[in-house]
Each structure stands twice: as C-alpha cells, then as structure tokens.
C-alpha cells in the first residue's frame, strides 16, 4: 500500500473519529486498527493471495462513512428486494440500521468482538478497515427454540464511493445446541458506484448449526470487499452458500476454523461474471481438531472480458487426525476474452486424513454441444442449457424456494440464459 493511502486513512479517521459510535467498536480498538493499517497496509496486487483482485477503487474512495451530515435516506420498502417468507428482515442502509425498512426489532448492540490478530493467514486487513470506520453493526444471538432462528440481513448501498464508503458489519454468536438460518444480501440502490467493505464474525458453539446464504448483487460499478471469519465448535456445523453476481470488483476472503472435534463445514459457492467484472474469492479452511470435515464446491462462469478467481486452501493441523476434506472447483469460460483462475491448495500436517480435490476450467465441451444439436436443439439453447447445468449442483442446494428463484432470475440476466431452460435440469 502506498504511504499516501495510509496517511489518507489515518487523516480521514482522525476527522471522523468523534462521530463513530463506541458501542459498535470502541475508540481504543478503532485506533489500534488504524495503527495496524499504517504498519501493515492494505493488501495490494503484489500480495500472493490478492493478485487476481481488482482493488483499483481504493485510490479514489473516500474512506469515512457518510455520517450524520449525509442526507436522510428516502428509500421505501418497495425499492428493496422482495422479503423472504418466514425470515425476519433487518435492513442496513450504507451500513446503518434502518428501522423503517426492517421487520424485526433489533437488540442493542455493543462491541463484544475480540481484537483481531494482524498478519494472520486468513488476512483480515480489510476487516481492520471495517473496525476503524464501521458506523453500525448487526448482532445476532440465538436462544433455544424448537425451530431454527430465521433472519435476513439486507445491506443496501446508497452513496457513491467518491462521497463515502460503507462498512456492513455482522457479529453472530450461536449458542450451544441452537440453530440459525441466516440470509445476507448486498444490493445497490440509486448510485451503483459504491465502495462496500464488509466484516463478518461468526462464532458457533458446541453442537450448534448455521446455514448462511450470502448473495452479492451490487451495482455495475461497485467495489465489494468482504472478510468473514467463522469459528466452529465441537460437533457444530457451518454451511455457507455464496452467490456472487454483481459489482465491478468483488473479493471475498473467508476463513473457517474447525476448532472443536467433529466440527464440519460446507461451502457452496458460485460466481457469474460478465463484461469487465472481477469475482475473486479466497477461502481458508483450517482443520484444527480431530474428526473435522469440510467440503468446498465452487462453480464459476466468466463471460465477456470478466475474470473469476477462486483460491481454496485447506490446512490440516497436526492435531487433526481423522480429517475428511473435499474440494471441487470448476470454471467455465463463456467468452473468448474471459479468464478463470482456480487454485486448490492442501497443506497436511498429520497422517490419517482423507483429502480429495479437483479443479478444472475450460470452455463448453464441443462433443456435448454437438450431441444436443444432433437432437434438434438450436445452438443458443444448447449453450444456455449447458450453462444452467454447470451451475445446477450449487444452485440446487439453495433450499429456500423464494431465494432460489430470485437468484435464478438474476443469473438468467447475468449469463444471458433463458430462465425457462432451467426446467430441463
């Protein structure tokens, strides 16, 4: 990171500090975060794990959030994505809770998160930037109930990057034996040149389970950066469905630590990029305890001049015998100038593990296309059908019908496929 950028972050923080609420992040922690950023810098293209990300927006973004001086938002519920039946919605506009757009009453928040380790392999530097500037946070806690808690957190970006960035923040603690179904969506309304830097921490206690649906549908000129850390306790499970559709530049950094015996995680991710879009993801799964399981499935389509990158790393620690880890990464090049970068990585420090991984990237198979044509399908239909089929195993796992069909509609527009063709799957 250039010194100029570090200086600018420090200056903007100093100017905004008085307005940033301590109940979200304490002043002491904010200052530590700014200091750490000045020392370590933000990631850049030269960092090994960041070389495919598009971070150009950083040069012109205004880091401080809009604050009280910003004009009051005039959004109506009608402008938001249709709510999902059975899910309580909390809406945040430019990172700040909007009660008039939310269905549920929210609990008071307080800074309860532990201080971040810096220079950690999970790479939390953008989360430090969130620590410094976050204006609000969604906090989710679970209690023992017969049915799982169902919550949707909707982050709406409204202001432009040149005016202000926004810092969605989500702090989730799931107590022992409880269940949570969480939908997290990111959209742009109004301007589409937003700069959004999300930080999420999820702590799942013994025997608890979380199913987390994440949909990124930002506007066409937006930059979306995301840092997620999940800690999964013994016999607990964390399942994440990540759908990347929007933004000009999107980067997700996800670190899942399987911290207790029998902990399990599943990550089903899909990215559909077109035009000049970049969708980049870095996933680190750490098997820190015995008999832990992980599964990663990634399907990415790049059309036009888009770039889709997925770097999935599995680290099996010395104290994690009986680990079972699977990884399947696939990329589909749907344009002559498109780019796919898949990188499966496996580090094993113990015996007695079962790890499998596979990564393939390529164009649609000519012999499969010919088979469909020889049955009378026109070339356009045949290609679209194969794109749907390529994404099918990941889309099928989104088991909330309303959410699934909204994703399918968005996908149809993104990769130029007719929606009714999915009936052939």
């Amino acid at each position, binding site marked *: 990171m250039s010194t100029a950028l570090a200086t600018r972050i420090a200056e903007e923080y100093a100017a905004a500090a008085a307005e940033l609420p301590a109940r979200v992040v304490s002043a002491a922690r904010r200052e530590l975060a700014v200091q750490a950023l000045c020392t370590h810098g933000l990631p850049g293209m030269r960092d090994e794990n960041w070389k495919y990300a598009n971070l150009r927006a950083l040069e012109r973004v205004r880091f401080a959030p809009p604050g009280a001086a910003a004009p009051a938002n005039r959004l109506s519920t009608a402008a938001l994505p249709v709510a999902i039946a059975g899910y309580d919605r909390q809406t945040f506009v430019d990172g700040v809770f909007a009660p008039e757009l939310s269905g549920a009453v929210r609990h008071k928040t307080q800074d309860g998160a532990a201080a971040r380790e810096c220079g950690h392999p999970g790479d939390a530097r953008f989360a430090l930037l969130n620590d410094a500037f976050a204006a609000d946070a969604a906090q989710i806690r679970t209690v023992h109930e017969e049915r799982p808690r169902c919550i949707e957190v909707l982050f709406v970006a409204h202001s432009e990057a040149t005016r202000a960035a926004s810092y969605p923040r989500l702090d989730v603690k799931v107590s022992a034996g409880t269940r949570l179904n969480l939908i997290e969506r990111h959209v742009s309304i109004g301007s589409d040149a937003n700069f959004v830097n999300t930080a999420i921490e999820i702590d799942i206690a013994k025997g608890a389970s979380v199913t987390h649906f994440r949909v990124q549908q930002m506007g066409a000129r937006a930059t979306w950066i995301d840092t997620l850390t999940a800690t999964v306790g013994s016999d607990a499970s964390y399942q994440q469905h990540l759908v990347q559709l929007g933004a000009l530049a999107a980067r997700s950094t996800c670190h899942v630590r399987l911290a207790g015996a029998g902990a399990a995680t599943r990550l089903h991710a899909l990215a559909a990029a077109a035009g000049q879009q970049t969708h980049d993801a870095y996933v680190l799964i750490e098997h820190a305890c015995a008999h832990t399981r992980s599964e990663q499935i990634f399907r990415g389509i790049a059309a036009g001049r888009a770039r889709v990158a997925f770097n999935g790393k599995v680290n099996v620690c010395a104290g994690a015998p009986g680990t079972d880890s699977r990884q399947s990464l696939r990329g589909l090049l749907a344009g002559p100038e498109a780019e796919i970068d898949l990188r499966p990585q496996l580090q094993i420090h113990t015996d007695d593990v079962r790890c499998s991984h596979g990564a393939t990237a390529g164009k649609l198979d000519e012999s499969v296309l010919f*088979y469909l044509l*020889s049955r*009378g*399908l026109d*070339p356009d239909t045949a290609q679209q*059908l*194969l794109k749907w*089929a390529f994404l*099918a195993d990941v889309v099928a796992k989104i088991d909330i019908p309303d959410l699934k069909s909204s994703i399918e509609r968005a996908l149809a527009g993104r990769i130029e496929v007719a929606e009714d063709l999915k*009936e052939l799957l």
Partner: protein
Amino acid sequence: MSALLTIDNLKVAVGDKPVLNGVSLEVGLGEVHAIMGPNGSGKSTLAHVLAGRPGYTLSSGSVTFEGRDLLSLAPEERARAGVFLGFQYPVEIPGVNNVYLLKAAFNALRKHRGLPEVDAFEFLGLVRAKMKFMRMDESFLGRAVNEGFSGGEKKRNEILQMLILEPKLAILDETDSGLDIDALKIVAQGVNSLRGAERSILLVTHYQRMLDYIVPDFVHVLVNGRIAKSGDRTLALELERRGYEWVSDEAA
C-alpha cells in the same frame, strides 16, 4: 423406390488426413443398409459427417437428402429434417434431465413441422410406453442424460430417443458395441419396430452379429474410405467367415 439419401463421390479429410475417398451410396425410402468395414475404414466418420459434426473438411462430393443439399444444413436443421444419429459413445450431461431434454428435442421437431407442442403430462405418457418397450426402469425418468449409465443403458437410451423422435433417416453408429446378447436383442427389437416404408436405416457396424437381429436389405463394405463391395446380407455372413482382408485385396 425413390432415394431418400444420395451420397455422391464424397471426399472428407480430418486435418490433412483423407478419411473418405469418394463414397457413393444411394439409400431408398424404407430400406435398411449396413455399412461394415475394418477399424479405421471411415465408417464412423461417414456417420458423423451425415449428422453434421464439425471438424471435418469436405473436399468434394455431395449428399442429397429428400432432394435437399444435406451438407449445407446445420446439425440441428438436419435433426429437424429427420436425420438421427445414434452415437457410438453417447455423452454424459450432468445436470440436464434425460426426459426433459427429450421433450425439448421432441417439441423442437414438432415446432419445425408446424405442430403444437405437447405438454409435460402427455409427453410423460409417451415416454413411459416407449421405456417399457425398451425395458428401461422408471428411475431413468429422473436421471441426468446418460450420467452414470452403463454402456448398455446408454445405447438403450439412444434407441429410446430414436423411437420418440421417429426420424426419416436413422444412422446407428456401432450401436451393438459393448452390448451383451440380451441388451442387443432389446436394441434390435427397438430398431425393428421403426422399420417401415416411411423411413430408412443406416447401420454402421464392425461385426455382423447385430445383423442376425436386424436383417439389412443391403450390405456395403467400406475399405480405405471407399465402398469396396456391396451385396445383400449374405455378404455380411461371408465377412464373418473370411474377415475383411480379401475385400481389400479384391479392391486393390
């Protein structure tokens, strides 16, 4: 009998390598022709060129189907005109449902003929009846195209598609390969059920075994990309007895 298909002096290369060196063949409506020949003689190439597979260079000759220039048509246009290729190696298409694909193909054909599309319920009834005829389990309804099918199941699935699409010209490329005798009988029964005055069948095969069950009207032997000898079904029996070498020698 009027010719459904006329191949005239067809020369085809793959890259720089000539594969078909002047094939001429006339297939009348209602006829069953068997194309036999040793490995590498160009049998499969001929089948694929007729169906419109890309990757071949046509240097000379013509193919006329129902009076139209077949080679000028795109693969999907040939399919809609009534040409069907039963693949030697049917491809697996994970994620695409076998029956839904078949319905899409069926309706593409009907649309081309100006007929109304059939709905899912009506189509399912048709598929069930044909599957029963091909002794295919109902579980095939819910499966992806050829995914995880055994060799024999894939071939049966090809014939099932043919029975539903009812082509005018069925080209079956080594449909007998990899089939045990019971599966071969079922496949043959499927093919025979389609025999009739309104369609023609081109059987491409290495062995005469299948011809015991689907008796051809004519047998042609392809050697080095040319039809070296033609005859009736007794020629196939002679090939079984004597092998292919004598035909090559004779042709030379």
